[in-house]
Every structure is written in structure tokens, then in C-alpha cells.
């Protein structure tokens, strides 16, 4: 039995220490934003944030997460109150089939937390581990820039927008 902190909540997990985090998130905690793509750390669709850094959850065994904070897309915002990164992706219509997008958003989020004003080149280089077969790359690029602007204005979260008159 191990305690895993996901999106601020402690979960008691009964799994082998070498179980990949992705399986625990999807099967045990029922958080399905992180996707199983290749299972080999080669496509990026399983990306979550661990202690502020983007991590491929399919190749991250549970035992590496002792005492760490895991954030999934569900931890950033909700349907009613999407986070800036989620709003930006919606406003740019950056998803087509959407399978890769949760992972893309998580790595973009980690990038923006570290570097609030990334250049085009920095975004491209950062998102290099992520594959998208639909080809919305240009929209994804725009969405990350838009998220950067949204985060810049302190009250840009949709929650505060909704409360505005």
C-alpha cells in the first residue's frame, strides 16, 4: 500500500511498485485524461506533471512517486472553469481527434510555469516528444502562445471572467 498524491488528494494505492503511473491513474483513480499511446515513452500522450516537471507516466513506475505531487489535466481546471491552457486550446480549436492533446497541454503547462513567455522555437523544442497525427501543430503553437497571454493577466481564468458583470 502506498500513498499517491494526485491533484492535491491523497490516494491509497495497492499496486506493485513497478506499476506504471499511467495504469494507476486510469485504472485505480479513474482519471482518464492521460492517454495510453505507445506505452514506451515515445508519443507523449500520457504526459502528466510531477513536481512541476512534465513526465511520461507510462514509463514512470509508482515507486518513483513517493512524496511527490502528481498533477493531471483534471487538476488544472474543470469543464465549468477551464484553466488558461485549456481555454486557449479550445479557443484556438487546437484539437482534432484530441488523443494527444491532454499530454500536449500538460507539457505546455509545465513549460509556461517555468518560462511564462516562450518563443516559437522554445515551444517547438519543448513539445518535440509529442506526436500528433491529425496535424494541428500550428494551432497547438498558437494555443500555447494564447495560454501564455491568458496567464499573464492575473484574472484571466474563466472563473473570474464568469463572475464579471
Amino acid at each position, binding site marked *: 500500500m502506498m500513498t499517491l498524491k494526485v491533484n492535491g488528494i491523497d490516494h491509497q494505492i495497492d499496486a506493485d511498485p*513497478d506499476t506504471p503511473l499511467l495504469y494507476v491513474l486510469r485504472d485505480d483513480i479513474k482519471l482518464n485524461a492521460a492517454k495510453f499511446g505507445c506505452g*514506451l515513452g515515445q508519443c507523449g500522450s500520457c504526459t502528466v506533471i510531477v513536481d512541476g*516537471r512534465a513526465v511520461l507516466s507510462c*514509463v514512470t*513506475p509508482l*515507486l518513483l512517486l513517493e512524496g511527490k505531487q502528481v498533477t493531471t489535466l483534471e487538476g488544472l481546471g474543470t469543464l465549468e472553469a477551464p484553466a488558461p491552457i485549456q481555454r486557449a486550446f479550445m479557443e484556438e480549436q487546437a484539437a482534432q481527434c484530441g488523443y494527444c492533446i491532454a499530454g500536449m497541454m500538460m507539457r505546455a503547462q509545465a513549460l509556461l510555469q517555468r518560462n511564462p513567455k516562450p518563443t516559437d522555437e522554445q515551444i517547438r523544442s519543448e513539445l518535440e516528444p509529442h506526436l500528433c497525427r491529425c496535424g494541428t501543430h500550428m494551432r497547438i503553437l498558437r494555443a500555447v502562445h494564447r495560454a501564455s497571454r491568458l496567464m499573464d493577466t492575473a484574472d484571466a481564468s474563466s472563473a473570474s471572467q464568469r463572475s464579471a458583470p
Partner: protein
Amino acid sequence: MRKSRIIGSVIAALLIAGGVAAFAIGWRPAIAAIDPPAPQSFDAALVKRGRELAAIGNCNDCHTVRGGKNFAGGLPVPTPFGTIFSSNITPDAETGIGRWPEAAFRRAMRSGVDRDGQHLYPTFPYDHFTNVTDEDDQALYAYLMTRQPVHAPARANQLSFPLDQRFVVAGWKLLFLRRGTYQPDSAQSAEWNRGAYLVEGLAHCGSCHTPRNALGAERATAQFAGGDVDNWHAYAINAQSLAPVPWDADALFAYLRDGWHPDHGVARGPMAEVVSNLSSVPPGDIRAIATYMAGVFGAPTPDRKRQGEAVLAQVRSPSAQAPKGDAAGAAIYAAACATCHETGRTLPYGGVNLALSTAIAGPDPRNVANIVMSGVRPVEGERSPIMPGFAGSMNDGQVAALLNYLRARFSNQPAWTDVEKTVEDARRTQIVFLQTSPGPHNAPADPTQRDKP
């Protein structure tokens, strides 16, 4: 009073005499500048030959910074003596070699002196280039003089006194620079001699693979016995090689040409740039290098050969093995590594079985630490092997546990020492490395893909 004056004048006389001697040894005349020659003035076939030679010489690797213009220099090269920045070798008239006549280029290659007569630091491996023929220097010159000129002033080296004085290099050359063109060995084949000429000369393999002495010169008595480059270990590529499966000419040819070999793995780190360049070189030259180096490795002892066969047999049809090493490392390996490295997917897209890895058998864990941290980045726009980096998901203690496990499980060598320290260093230096390296340090998997737009 008088005594001290005598001592004073003796010292002054010695200083002057020393100065004159140093001047005589160290002084080189400037070679008159020319107007930059028009690119059209060079023969196209010569330029093409120069391109191939520049690829063998791996020139772009040091003379280009990541994301920067080709051959514009500025790459910081850390040495035990300080940081030296590579120079601009584009034909820019002000900041490059645009005003250098061919004689000045040849002199730089042969004796490490620039057009102004200044000594160049031996990070520029003229100790090898000294044997390059006039014809090859001519082709290299034609190639470089027809590149895009880039205005990029040299960056100041970070060296302390007296090493920041270039005449000091003249003393180094007296000790270590052996001039002379390559003398063929008539007892060997033409191919072997071609390989020797390239390996000892332009390809300057020993610059990384030969250990250096306290003054930074390659140790002649330990040629190819393994050296250091950036924060990587360049393996021993002579009889002391620790490769689990002994290298032969065919394996070397395939590895140098394609960037990977099923019995050895994928080139990465600084070697990736080398094989990436070699992919555009005529196969005959690669074959020659492989033939010569196979001789340097030497035929494996019956013992080594048997061990190599045993490792291959175990990899091809694994039998259950008693668990070795600590449980935490084993669990990390099982979840993070084995899915690629032990499922039998073929190279280069599957990971090499680590029982075949020279990195695991190597003398220190630097290379494994670097790769676990940073992974293998894809080559832009090409099919290529990749590996995710684990710097974000593993702390230093966890990487160390993994490394210790890999060593215990996949090699029959004694445990590494100072693994924690190595991991710490790898985490720190990889950040710097990724910022300064000239491109994704990786080998394209399929050479036929490389020339496509």
C-alpha cells in the same frame, strides 16, 4: 646592495634571452590577406570532395553552436585549462577566413597558426591534421570558402595567465606536435593505409578516444585506450575495449555508416554527431576506417570471443536468471526501461539489450547517467531512434539505484564507485550540454533518409 644589483641584472638578462628564444621559437609571420575569392572560382568536384572530407573531419561539430549558423564558431569547449571557443571558419571577410589564402589555411591545418601568425590552441586538433595531404587541404579550403559567409566575431577564451598568452602554445608544439605526412605501410593493404591516413589524420579519432596527459596532449603510449570528451567517456577502441561483443570490421562499418549495430546499440552523445556526418561519406572511406580500426582492436582472445558469443546467445534466447542487484533498481528497470530494452524489438527503434551495452561494461557510469537523464533526442524531420529522458521523474538517488542495478545485472564487472557523484554531475552538466551542442546528438537510423528535404 651591489650583490642584489648583479642578481637583478642576471635575471633581466635571462628574461631577455628567454624572451628572444621564445620569440624565435614562437614567432610566425602573418600571411598577406587576399580579397575573398568568388565561390564560382572553385571547381565543383573539388568542393564536393571537400564536403566529404569535412564530414570525415567532423568540422561542423565544434565549429557550430546549437541553433547557430553552420561553421560560424562560438562553441564553448571546456578543457582542464579553461574554456576555449571555436572559431568562425565561414568565408566572412571580417570575422571568418574569407581573407585567408590557401597557404594560410594549410599552415593552420599543419602547424596550428592562423593567418596573422598567432598560435592556435590545440583544441583545434592540428596534431592530427598535420598529416593531411596538400590535395585534401585544397579540397577542404574550397569547400569552406564556398559556404555561406556569416558575420560572427570570435568569443574571448576563458583562460588564466599564462595560458592566455598564445606563445605558450609554441612550447606545447615543441613538446607534442610531430609534423609529417602519412607514410604508407607497404606490408598492409591500400584500404588499411587509407584507413590509417584518415583515422590518424583528418578523422582525429584519438582526440576523444586517447587519454591525455597533464599538459593536454594525447598519451602516445596509450593510443585509443579511452578518453574523455565533454562529460562523456570515449571508450577504449583498442585491445582494451570492454564491448561485451568484440568489434570486427563489418560491425564497425555498419555502425559508422548507419549509426547503430544490433550487437552494440545506437551511437549517442558526441559520437552521434560523428556518425551523422559519416553517413554522407563515400562507403569506401568508411570501409577503410573500419578495416584499420579492426586491426587496432585486434583479433579477440578466445576468451573474449567465447564470452561475446555467450552474451549474444543469452540475449537471443533468454533463460531465466536469478535476480541480482537491489529491489528498487530492479523495479525501476522493469517499469521504465525493460519495455524497450528487453522486449526483443529490433534496433534501432527498439532499445539494445543492455547486456550488449559497452556503457554498462564501461569503466565509469558517466555515459549511462547522461543517457538516463536526457534520453536520445529525435533527429528533426527524420525517422530516428529516440529514448525519453528521465531527469524529470527520477531523483539522483533513484538514478543511482538504477545504475547500480544495471551494472550488477548486465555486466560481470565490479560495481562502479562514486555513482551518486556521477549522477549529480550528469544532472548539472547535461543542462549545459543540451544548450550548447550543435544539434540533436543522435544518429539518423536510415542513411537514405538523410538527404531528403
